């Protein structure tokens, strides 16, 4: 299981100084993680990667997590939210080929999500092999406009 972190912009009050708010080494680190995983588990894996790509977006009301899971049926996808982490577990069934029965290959990934989530209103949809999980933000976490009267 691999935990993915992203760095949220530090506070909504002051603008982020860096042009990109991601650690510049994240890309290299994740490639090296993937290299170790592939070398230490099995070479000729049935699927290309044990990890599936995940995107995280937000707008002012929700946080969205999209995961690319082609070939996985809806009932084989498990989405859980616990302790500020969203875990997606999926099992892909490979149709029986001659000589082998039906094989199944499982993936799992965890993504950190902001603490202020309305956990009972989380929804997930799956379309064309892409899973989208919508996590509504709690009211106090939404950006609010405060008008200050200048005297």
């Amino acid at each position: 299981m691999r935990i993915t972190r992203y760095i949220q912009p530090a506070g909504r009050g002051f603008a982020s100084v860096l042009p990109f708010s991601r650690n510049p080494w994240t890309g290299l680190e994740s490639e090296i993680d993937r290299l170790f995983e592939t070398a230490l588990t099995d070479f000729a894996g049935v699927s290309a990667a044990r990890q599936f790509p995940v995107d995280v977006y937000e707008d002012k009301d929700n946080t969205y997590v999209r995961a690319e899971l082609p070939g996985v049926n809806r009932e084989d996808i498990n989405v859980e939210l616990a302790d500020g982490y969203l875990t997606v577990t999926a099992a892909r069934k490979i149709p029986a080929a001659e000589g082998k029965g039906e094989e199944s290959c499982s993936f799992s990934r965890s993504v950190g999500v902001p603490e202020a989530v309305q956990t009972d209103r989380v929804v997930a949809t799956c379309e064309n092999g892409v899973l989208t999980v919508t996590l509504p933000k709690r009211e106090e976490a939404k950006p609010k406009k405060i008008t200050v009267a200048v005297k």
Partner: protein
Amino acid sequence: MSLFNTLIPSFAHWPARRGNGAAPDLGPTVKPYYEIQEKPEAYALTVHLPGVAKEGLELTADANTLTVVGRRAWKQPEGWTALFRESADVLFELVLEHDNAIDAEKIQAELKDGVLRASLPKAEAIKPRKIAVG
């Protein structure tokens, strides 16, 4: 080569790669994950195209090559800020070269849940045949 690509995954994925000169230039494309299995009568091709619907899929076969182009159906809505991206908004393009080995008329393909499964029947000329010795 494929073992090498499995050991060092980043070599297998070229995020922005020009299509080869023969095909019209589609801009940056990414090569999807694919598998080919050979069966006695046909080749079974499986291509992973997450986010591609039937309308965005083009399958072209000619004498030498089989080209699969997939356009993702989803566009990032206005107002969404990307915090962390691992996929890319580029086309999927897969070009497979064969030497008249496939009968293009009889190709059957289905796209379900972002996976394209195609059966590519072998051309008559390459099927093994028994030759009687007179």
